[in-house]
Each structure stands twice: as structure tokens, then as C-alpha cells.
């Protein structure tokens, strides 16, 4: 498991745990003190990232699409923040 933490400007914290295989996400858990509505879609969001290459642009796009399709509201974090934390975890730091 690779882990990372990312503190968003304004104070919210994102923590990511992931496993990777050949440069792609094969397991991921996103935790933290942010707000996302409806809350129960977090697991679907995580599932949507499985198989995604560890590429910041693609991850941002994937999250943006998911949010738009499912009518999700984020508060205190952006898709870019999630992506940055995921990439940091993928690099095997922290």
C-alpha cells in the first residue's frame, strides 16, 4: 500500500492509500475531512479510478466526469486536489 497526505489550501486534508500495477491504480481508498454530497458515492468514485493510469491529467478528467455524471457537490476540495494526492501516493512517497 502506498500512502500520501495532502493539505488543501484553506485547511481540508486528503489522505490516499493505493496499490498500483504497471502504472495503473488497482486499489484505492480516499479519506479525509472534506465534504462530498451525496456522501455514499465515495466508494463509487474510488471504483471509477480503478484501472486509471497514474497520470494527473487523466485522473482529474476521470474525477470531473464522475462528478458531473453523478451530480456530486464537493466542498473544501477539488478534483485537482484529489488528483495531486493520488499522484503523490503513486510516486511512493510518504
Amino acid at each position, binding site marked *: 500500500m502506498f500512502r500520501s497526505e495532502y493539505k488543501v489550501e*484553506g485547511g*481540508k*486534508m486528503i*489522505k490516499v492509500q493505493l496499490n498500483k500495477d504497471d502504472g495503473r491504480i488497482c486499489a484505492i*481508498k*480516499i*479519506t*479525509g*475531512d*472534506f*465534504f*462530498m*454530497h*451525496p*456522501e455514499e458515492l*465515495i466508494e463509487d468514485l474510488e471504483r471509477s479510478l480503478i484501472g486509471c493510469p497514474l497520470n494527473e491529467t487523466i485522473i482529474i478528467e476521470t474525477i470531473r466526469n464522475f462528478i458531473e455524471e453523478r451530480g456530486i*457537490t464537493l*466542498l*473544501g476540495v477539488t478534483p485537482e486536489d484529489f488528483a495531486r494526492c493520488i499522484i503523490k501516493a503513486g510516486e511512493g512517497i510518504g
Partner: protein
Amino acid sequence: MVERWRLLDTGLNDAFYNMALDEAIVIARSKGIVPNTLRFFRWDPSSVSIGYFQSMEEEVDIEACNRLGIDYVRRRTGGGAVYHDRDGELTYSLIINEDHRLISRDFQKTYETLCLGLVKGLRLLGVPAEFKPINDIVVNGKKISGNAQTRGMNIVHQHGTILRNVDPALMFTVLRVPSEKIRDKMIKSVGERVTSIEKYLGRDVSFEELKSALIMGFEESFDIELSSGEITDFEKQAALKLKREKYSTKEWNFRR
């Protein structure tokens, strides 16, 4: 005609019942069984609540909690981990129909509108509180209240904490810090980041005095009248079931 809301003061209860009752009130409100509601409550034993998206193991020192007899529970709302001291902290909940004039589709706007009730109440006590986006209330830049909101079943549910007094050392015994090395630093810095009503005013403030001020603040700010009420049998039964089947279970509390 002045708009009447229900005021509940459910006193001291355990963490699992407290969170279950909040959800039970949301369900009752969505069924139209009860009016819009302001609830005050406290936690016995003292407890930690974590946000919906947080990991219990990452945020809470389970061993320390078990040793100290402190309960831990996951909330249905996002946001951060909170230590709810039995004697130092007051919690409130607002359960409001989503089509109410106070509710905006914009979460940030709604946080501000609802928090202004608390801000007004705190100012009535002589505490110059201000709303600080996203979800905090601060005094001279120091946090005195944290709030969290969710929606569902056409109901807005916001709950939050108001610090009457605070013990930073205990707070960081139960909440995990990145390392032991920085625990002392964090305990010290919490004094610079967090304050409480008693600390600011330099005098004792009873829960009764605090609640009275907050009631007036909400009434004035929301242009409503709060009438003391009781929880219905429906809410009581639903709360007991939710406590048993959700909030007291490992599946819920350790799901992330």
C-alpha cells in the same frame, strides 16, 4: 404568524444514540411527522466523532479511548474528527426541510445562513464570533465551533459543536497526531488556533446560559419561534434501531 420550530434538549446520551437520534429526526421530518427542529445535546461518556470520509484508525487513538472510557463514532456528515467533552462541549443539530426559505441549493451559502444563528447567540453572550468559510465559527481568528451539513430525503441536517471550555492535552490524547514528537507542539499550538467561550470571557458560563443565548440567536437570526418539545415515539424507536443496527456497529464505525 410567526414560524414555530421545535426545540429539543436531549441532554446526556452516548455517542451511538446521539448520532442515531439525529438521523431518526431527519427521517421523521422527511415523513412530515415533526416540524423543523433545533436539538441540543451532550455526550456521556465523552466521545470522539469522525467525519463520514475519515478512517477511524487513522484519526482516533483507539487504545487511548478504550483506556479512558471514551466512545468513538462515525458521523453521517463529512468534516473532521471532534472530541466531544462531556462537560466542555455543547452540540446542536438543525433538521430543516430543504424547501425552507433559509436553505439555498448552495451548500456554502446555507452553512453561512445557519451558522449565523450561532454567531448571533454567541454575540449575545459577549463573544465576538464570526463565520469563517467553509464550516467554522471563529473568535479573533480562533476556532470556537465546527459544523457539518448533509442533505438527503429532502432534508438539510446540520450539526456542530460549541466549545464551552477545552482541554487541548486530552484532545490530542484521543485524536491521532502525526507523531509523538509533535504532540507537545500541537497541544501548544491548539491554544493559538482554538478557543472556548469561558476562555474568551474569562468567567464560568453554564450550559443553561449558553443554550438560552443560542436559542435567542437562532430565533432572531432565522425569524422563528422555538417551542420546547419532546421526541416522538417514532423518533425514539427509530433512534434505538439505528443505534443498534448502524451507529454502534463495527461495520459502520470502521468502514473506512
